[in-house]
């Protein structure tokens, strides 16, 4: 059994409106030193796989096919034994 953590963010070239709004709100709350906020998705999943490499391959496939829209999003993931 493996546990995967997937991080999906907008590509750097795409404007992250939500991140900007969060940044402004944080500043308004007196968190002065905050710069460059980016808001994305965090997906945790458990999966069965033959080995770690297979698990990683599966997670990559999931990202490409469903979890991320690669026109505007990029993804990273971490897989560990669970």
């Amino acid at each position, binding site marked *: 059994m493996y546990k995967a953590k997937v991080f999906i963010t907008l590509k750097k070239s795409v404007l992250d409106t939500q991140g900007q709004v969060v940044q402004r709100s944080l500043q308004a709350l007196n968190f002065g030193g905050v710069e460059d906020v980016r808001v994305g998705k965090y997906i945790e999943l458990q999966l069965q796989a033959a080995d770690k490499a297979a698990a990683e391959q599966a997670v990559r496939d999931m990202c490409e096919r469903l979890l991320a829209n690669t026109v*505007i999003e990029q993804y990273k993931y971490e897989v560990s034994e669970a």
Partner: protein
Amino acid sequence: MKFGVIIFPGSNCDRDCYHVVDQVMGQPVDFIWHGADSVDGYDGIILPGGFSYGDYLRTGAIARFSPVMGAVEKAAAAGKTVIGICNGFQILTEAGMLPGVLRRNESLQFICKFLHLKVEHNESAFTNACSPGQVLRVPIAHGEGNYYADPEVLAGMEENGQILFRYCEADGTVSAAANPNGSLENIAGICNREGNVMGMMPHPERSSEEILTSADGRFVFESILRHFKMRNCECGAAHATCKIKTAKCGVR
């Protein structure tokens, strides 16, 4: 012209589209369940608005894997007319049947209101009943209608006449002030290269009867019907050529 309106789990404009095709346009229409594996026998397929699969993950991302979508892709490849409205548009972009993506509105809020659309050209299957540059009054109702496509993709779309509608002011001026959601180039509706698959964020079905504030949305449905009639017309003679090169459609 026989229409099919697809019901995805969470669709909520399915009945509205059905109503307009049936009651306003007087055409035969059926609902098609998302689990269906065929859309044979339909000349026009409508992917309605709503929140398919609760808009989870991304709008349209999950619905696009519905069994019926395989059949819709085949129908599109065979030249059948496919119309995605609002969530339907989002599904079509996720499915790769239309270019680009629809991102969250710049305001990060859902927006429901009447606004104006400029018809870019009337040489498509979806706008041929309009006059060139006509301004339509049609409502939007979405949280994610902010159209984006990579620059090269966009350039190709412009070139091919794939941009059909842009948000504009009442007099037709396409301005930043008229852009409700941050859409690139004020884009509100587009079609594919072949000219038979269309997606638009505004709701023509909500503005096809005078009692609903505006009947301008009817121009879209009338265009579709007119195109269908032309294409199936025997005479074949005096048809003007379509700007979308590969399509066989023509307007007398």
